[in-house]
């Protein structure tokens, strides 16, 4: 019998099945596979049966959310280890086997995960463990950080691991009762980790192992915000407010809603989402001293690079924005540490970018994959950059050596020279 069962939840994931089948084929020597289809209406289940005939497919009766769908599969697991894997994530056989060896060697560790990198932009991290903010929001550590070189350690203790790609002990999942189905989507993995940690289990990141993850492939941003809101209510009530919403959380929500009203938006969808969570009964979890150490604080006023605009960068549309750009009021800016450019083909070209910055001096690199192609410097004001992109490269990233302290970095003009 194979030691691991890979559990993957599908929902309207037809476009991802080809890559998923390839991932599962590679993991076959160690893994059984259970797929759960959350009642997709687009024929995902049938396509999955064709693409992965050896996998066991469970059909949920309705779309009850990510955690509930996972629980269906977890009931069927008979192996000592479970690989939770999103359809848009990939882990190689070598990484899985190293994770397995790590869990076998470290009896106190409930689960571990590799360093996840963005699928098409491997110089940037998609997650290195996860944690919770003081408002009850889960987040991926090092998300969207430029990280060409992983930390030089074998394992790092982290507050939690992501459900996108992590290897768990089946006994831990069974002991905790699996995911809490009250969470429809988002932060359910952080909740599970906190419950497991309160029983004395630990979590580790293995930074020398790598996986890939397509960020935001499963949901649109607008809907995701509402699911995140509902989940943060549950987390805050359970871990931070003794069953009720803490005053700090309420103050912030009031500020957000007042801001929306001031801009002329009625926060009807937020009210509906909050009303839904009021009906749920949440038992507070006594966090205890060691448990509280899970709350790894994130400096809330540091820039959080979550750019998501991916439109055309140049006037003729030849250059397209990758992750890391934000567009508002006709201005295109790079709010975080890095951003990507997609060229029309791999025939090699010189790309001209006019950037402007209010910081006194910024420096950075441009590169492809994990390779650095060149360096640039940006004094205050407007600077014209010329990036020499060699043949065979379509995706180029710009990465600052640090964050743009002293003001955002704006893109004034972009063209292929």
């Amino acid at each position: 019998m194979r030691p691991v069962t890979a559990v993957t939840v599908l929902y309207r994931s037809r476009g991802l099945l080809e890559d998923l089948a390839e991932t599962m084929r590679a993991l076959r020597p160690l893994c059984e596979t259970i797929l759960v289809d959350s009642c997709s209406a687009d024929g995902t289940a049938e396509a999955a049966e064709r693409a992965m005939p050896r996998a066991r497919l469970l059909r949920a009766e309705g779309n009850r959310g990510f955690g509930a769908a996972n629980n269906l599969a977890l009931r069927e697991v008979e192996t000592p280890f479970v690989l939770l894997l999103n359809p848009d994530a990939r882990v190689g056989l070598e990484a899985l086997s190293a994770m397995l060896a790590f869990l076998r060697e470290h009896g106190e560790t409930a689960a571990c995960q590799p360093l996840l990198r963005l699928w098409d932009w491997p110089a940037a991290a998609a997650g290195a463990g996860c944690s919770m903010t003081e408002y009850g929001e889960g987040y991926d550590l090092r998300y969207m950080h430029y990280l060409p070189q992983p930390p030089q350690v074998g394992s790092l203790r982290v507050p939690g691991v992501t459900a996108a790609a992590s290897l768990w002990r089946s006994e831990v999942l069974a002991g905790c009762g699996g995911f809490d189905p009250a969470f429809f989507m988002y932060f359910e993995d952080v909740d599970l980790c906190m419950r497991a940690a309160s029983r004395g289990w630990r979590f580790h990141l293995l930074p020398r192992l790598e996986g890939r993850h397509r960020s935001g492939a499963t949901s649109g941003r607008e809907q995701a915000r509402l699911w995140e809101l509902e989940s943060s209510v549950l987390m805050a009530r359970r871990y931070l407010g003794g069953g009720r919403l803490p005053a700090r959380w309420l103050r912030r929500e009031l500020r957000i809603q007042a801001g929306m009203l001031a801009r002329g938006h009625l926060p009807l969808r937020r009210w509906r989402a909050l009303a839904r969570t009021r009906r749920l009964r949440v038992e507070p979890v006594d966090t205890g001293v060691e448990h509280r150490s899970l709350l790894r604080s994130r400096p809330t006023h540091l820039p959080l690079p979550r750019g998501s605009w991916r439109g055309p960068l140049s006037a003729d549309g030849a250059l397209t924005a990758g992750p890391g750009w934000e567009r508002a009021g006709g201005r295109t800016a790079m709010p975080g540490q890095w951003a990507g450019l997609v060229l029309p083909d791999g025939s090699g070209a010189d790309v001209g970018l006019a950037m402007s910055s209010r910081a006194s001096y910024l420096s950075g690199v441009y590169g492809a994959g994990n390779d650095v192609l060149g360096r640039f410097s940006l004094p205050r004001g407007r600077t014209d950059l010329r990036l020499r992109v060699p043949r065979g490269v379509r995706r180029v990233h710009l990465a600052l050596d640090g964050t743009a302290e002293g003001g955002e970095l704006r893109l004034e003009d972009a063209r292929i020279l």
Partner: protein
Amino acid sequence: MRMLHLVHRSWPYHGGAERYVLEHALASRRWGHQSTVLTTDAWDMSWMVSRRGRHLEPGRLVHGGVEIIRFPVRHPPLQNLLRGLLIRLAPGGPDRYCYPNPFLPSMARWLRRSRGWGFVHANALPSLLYMGWRHARREGAGMAAVPHANVGEPHRRTQAVRYFDGAAERVLRDSSFVVAQSSFEAGIYRDMGVPDERVLVLGSGIDPDELRGAEPAPEALGLSGEVVLSLTAHCRDKGSVDLLAASRELWRQGSGHTLVLAGPIMPDMEEELAAVAGELPPGRLVVTGYLDREDRLAWLASCDVLALPSRLDCFGIVLLEAWALGKPVVGCYSGAMPDLVRDGSRGFVVPFGDRRTLAHRLGVLLRSPGLRRGMGERGRRMVMSGFTWRAVTDRFYSRLAECGQP
């Protein structure tokens, strides 16, 4: 025993004094004590005195078994005027009163209500030393004062003594013991009337495990040629302006090195950078901003020389980190650096502001890989022989055990 540590910033912020306090709080468990760290919500120092700058959420958290309580810095209207008035009008005169800088009313309230602390370990800001001293006196607890005083250069002793205005001098004299980071700093405390036996020259340390496995990766960082790294908060008094000028001189002479300014850039250095940015050779200056611990390691491992020509650092943990990785350093005749570096042995020491000498010493090191290796190795041996956090905290707690209750 229950110990109270007071410091202006704490974990997750990674700085010299902050790390020093956290390591002592973590080590207290080994000695059978229970520690709580009281700190502020500031991330940038500018948040202490103005609404500019970044800050964290106030609140409680536990890190490594140590409770850390972050109190919000308040910014009342006209706060600078208010401070000025308080200094002049507060009863008792300057010897009895320490003006609140930063304003931390919630920390003061917490201290008034809190009981049962056996020892207070107060660090860095004079106002925190004062709050710790008042609490220790009321509770009848022991107190270690650790001013982390940026005492400047030995020949500017008058300025160094001025650092301890008002009640700070009295706080030091009344403490169970005072921790100095260098023999120069210790000399100042003795001159201020602190008895010799109550001054402990301690220094700082590193955790060798954190640096284990660090490998140079200049290609991944896009670096070419030799790399001079300066890892500090960059401003004029930290010598960053001089370092940039010395590098420009070397570039003019044909040197192909890259200068990396890692760490936050302070306003005066920003002005300097903006003024000279157009004249710099492209790609030879790298400005990284604040680095977290993991990123620091990558840059440190990838440099050839570490430069810290600063007159503001009372110790300079980054020197120890560089030596632990076998890198030579260029420091300044200030704080603990002359004692640690010993000019020509583990690196070079230059007078603060002497750009020509700084350029010359950097040039010598950049041209001589053998000299770099030798100096780095001598530094590494010194660090491993007594400048680890375990050794430093053991010295502190041994001293604490000797002094007992005052």
